[in-house]
């Protein structure tokens, strides 16, 4: 066994072990399993959020865009900061309602605020349809990174099978708490890897970060300002994209759900204050992509530029370490995605749609079954049908962001009606799908999802004002 391989396998096993240990001696009821018993403090929430937000694809994507598109990749740095500002004002209100009414999932919130089971089912379906391709993307990224880092010693399929089976197992035993604990390992490894290559690669190849940028400004000055190498991604595209993705960020069901796991609204606010700092390491990933642009020109896709440059520059054991960090970086978000999808399916589709009388214990049992079902589906898509969900993935953020008007208006505008929200949601998703699948993205220089969001807001407002007021949620 080569040192690279030993490091990759050792880290994956250690991460899974941490996931199992996290659930020891904790009775697994629905509350503990899906929202960690609503007991998470500021440190664990921060680790968990960071664990979910930074995915393998953040790295492959951020460096890949820096390589292939140039400046448009900066949007990744911006939208996270905007999302945390929004969360500072919105998440504590969601937490309060969740605490009062004992909510576990995003559709629970819609059901409660709008007193509409149908709307809850619609939101659950949107969530599941968004999660599946995203989960598949995580697995694909994991396979890619381990196969490249082990120099082919571990095939992509073997890497995906091993890490995802272990991930699914610790989700079953430990629930959200397992993900939080694995996040600790993940965050340390990933920050170390990004720090070393982000400062190291420009220094090794160009003497310093400034030297790398000087070389790039000589060779391709346009690469470093909008629109970079992507003519359609000018400043209006960046502005509309960061607004859309900033608003869509916490609308991902798994991130929305984190709001319920905090011990208090105070913890959510404090977390929002510090989270933007965690965005900063992304700039190091840009440096890697830019360095690769200069050192390894002409790659077919940018997504592999980070790994290829690392392999070209560092000894094999270190490449193994980066591969290990990449694998764990995919395991944490995958675990939360599986857990969220299972909770949506069991609580908001099974119970709400088919078995209104089901007890929490029964929902919990069904949830466990759903974990296996979701995990199997994701594996089949990742290994057998890698292209089946590509279209859904394209829609990703454009789709979930359409939930934003419903959440914000539901919290802060008394006149909004369930019919208005449903109509706006349907219209927003239809417009987004039409523009994205019809290859009209960007539309008039703007992000297609943002255009859809404007239509959504307009329709919610008009339909709500035309209709009767919604019934108030029951007190207590």
């Amino acid at each position: 066994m080569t040192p690279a391989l030993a490091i990759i396998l050792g880290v994956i096993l250690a991460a899974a072990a941490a996931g199992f240990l996290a659930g020891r001696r904790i009775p697994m009821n629905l509350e503990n399993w899906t929202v960690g018993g609503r007991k998470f403090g500021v440190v664990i929430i921060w680790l968990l959020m960071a664990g979910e937000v930074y995915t393998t694809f953040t790295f492959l994507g951020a460096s890949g865009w820096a390589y292939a598109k140039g400046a448009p990749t900066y949007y990744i740095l911006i939208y996270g900061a905007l999302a945390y500002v929004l969360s500072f004002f919105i998440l504590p209100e969601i937490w309060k309602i969740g605490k009062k009414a004992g909510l576990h999932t995003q559709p629970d919130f819609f059901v409660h605020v709008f007193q509409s089971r149908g709307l809850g089912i619609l939101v659950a379906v949107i969530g599941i349809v968004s999660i599946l391709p995203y989960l598949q993307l995580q697995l694909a990224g994991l396979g890619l990174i381990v196969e490249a880092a082990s120099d082919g010693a571990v095939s992509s399929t073997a890497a995906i099978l091993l890490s995802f089976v272990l991930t699914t197992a610790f989700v079953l035993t430990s629930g959200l708490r397992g993900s939080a604990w694995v996040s600790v390992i993940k965050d340390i490894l990933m920050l170390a890897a990004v720090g070393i290559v982000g400062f190291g690669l420009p220094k090794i190849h160009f003497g310093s970060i400034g030297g790398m940028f000087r070389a790039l400004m000589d060779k391709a000055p346009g690469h470093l300002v909008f629109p970079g190498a992507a003519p359609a991604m000018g400043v209006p595209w960046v502005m509309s994209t960061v607004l859309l993705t900033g608003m869509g960020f916490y609308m991902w069901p798994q991130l929305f759900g984190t709001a319920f796991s905090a011990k208090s609204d105070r913890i959510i606010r404090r977390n929002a204050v510090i989270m933007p700092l965690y965005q900063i390491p992304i700039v190091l990933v840009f440096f890697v992509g830019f360095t690769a642009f200069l050192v390894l020109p002409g790659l077919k896709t940018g997504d592999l530029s980070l790994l290829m440059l690392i392999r070209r520059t560092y000894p094999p054991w270190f490449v193994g370490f980066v591969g290990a960090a990449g694998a764990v970086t995919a395991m944490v978000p995958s675990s939360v995605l599986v857990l969220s999808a299972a909770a949506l399916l069991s609580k908001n589709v099974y119970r709400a749609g088919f078995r209104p009388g089901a007890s929490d214990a029964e929902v919990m049992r069904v949830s466990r079954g759903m974990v296996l079902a979701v995990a199997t589906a994701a594996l089949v898509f990742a290994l057998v049908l890698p292209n089946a969900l590509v279209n859904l993935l394209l829609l990703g953020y454009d789709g979930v962001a359409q939930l934003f008007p419903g959440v914000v208006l539901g919290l802060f505008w008394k006149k909004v009606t369930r019919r208005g929200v449903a109509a706006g949601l349907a219209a927003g998703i239809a417009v987004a799908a039409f523009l994205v699948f019809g290859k009209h993205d960007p539309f008039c220089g703007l992000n297609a999802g943002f255009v859809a969001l404007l239509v959504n807001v307009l329709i919610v407002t008009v339909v709500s004002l035309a209709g009767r007021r919604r019934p108030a949620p029951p007190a207590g």
Partner: protein
Amino acid sequence: MRPAMKKALFCGAVPFVALVAALPFVNRLRPVVFGLPFVLFWILAWVALTPLFLYLADRFLRKDKNGKDGRP
């Protein structure tokens, strides 16, 4: 709206102005700051400053809750 919430919202709006509204005016290569192209430096600086504004917003809200500030 409570005055503390108004102040907090104002703090929250600052990053949006800097990171969205200002983009057309800062989309330039020079001056190079700390080795970075200007637009990247601008974005990085404002992402790093965002916690400061959220901290201030948090302080306004906390003071208000503790009754040391704002109307009774």
